[in-house]
């Protein structure tokens, strides 16, 4: 039975699934706390005057920080969309696999972002410890003006 695919029809049918949009508020405090947690003292993430001197309207986010969810549940790497189905298929061990990101407009304090996530791909691979399922969740972030500010593709590994 070792050759049998662990991608059930139920799992395959999830490709293309869209999540509910999540509204993210980008606040100065959240930016500073995030930068502090990284140990990053870059003045663009801490001092409004320094950010302005560099040509930004306010503090900017370290690339990859999207603010804090105020409506809808934040999905860590889209995990909540796929988690339940993966677990149902017997894949209880779930790890973050990595990211691939594009940034178009710097995100700054005061922005309100809307995040739309979809399951872009689900594929199976043979790993050292057996079969693994790689799920890619693509999230597009729009700001309050309707501009796309960034796209984040997160890979989740289940085994």
């Amino acid at each position: 039975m070792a050759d049998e695919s662990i991608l059930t029809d139920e799992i395959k049918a999830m490709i293309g699934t869209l999540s509910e949009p999540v509204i993210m508020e980008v606040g100065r405090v959240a930016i500073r706390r995030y930068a502090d947690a990284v140990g990053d003292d870059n003045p663009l993430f801490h001092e409004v005057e320094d950010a302005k001197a560099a040509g930004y309207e306010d503090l900017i986010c370290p690339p990859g920080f999207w603010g804090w969810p105020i409506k809808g549940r934040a999905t860590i790497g889209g995990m909540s969309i796929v988690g339940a189905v993966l677990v149902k298929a017997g894949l209880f061990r779930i790890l973050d696999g990595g990211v691939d990101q594009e940034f178009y407009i710097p995100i700054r304090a005061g922005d309100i972002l809307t995040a739309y996530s979809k399951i872009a791909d689900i594929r199976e691979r043979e790993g050292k410890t057996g079969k693994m399922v790689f799920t890619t969740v693509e999230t597009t972030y729009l700001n309050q003006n309707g501009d796309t500010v960034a796209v984040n593709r997160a890979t989740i590994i289940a085994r």
Partner: protein
Amino acid sequence: MAKKQLCYEDVEVGSEVPTLEKISTTQMAVRWAGASGDFNPLHYDDNFAASQGTGGIITHGALKRAWLVQLVTDWIGARGRVKKFACQYRGMDYPRRMATMGEPAEGETWLCKGTITNKKVEDGEHLVECNIWVEDGKGEKTTPGSATVILPAKKG
């Protein structure tokens, strides 16, 4: 005093991004969980981690990603911008425990490094590409990645 701004002309293919040193600790994991919103117990609960077959609590992949972002943003300065960024969480890293309320126990130190692989002008943007990675205490690249940045140019 503000650092001197890095410009496109200052960058040579093959040269290195200045190394950034980091120490992952259990305390940092808690701070990161709170600030990022990732409360997966894999990163702070020994029993849960044991059930996940990771050999203990592991450092958040996204925290290592954030270290690499800092490596890049420190290097490119206030007027540089990150255009593309990618990394893969290939190897697991295990945080140091805390020796006191503020000091980590002895142990591993991680190095974030990078090398410049290409530079080009495209659609009026001065782009520099680099390979970046996090190296563990044994010198293994646990988190390889790449970034494309936009730098200001000296000549208009």
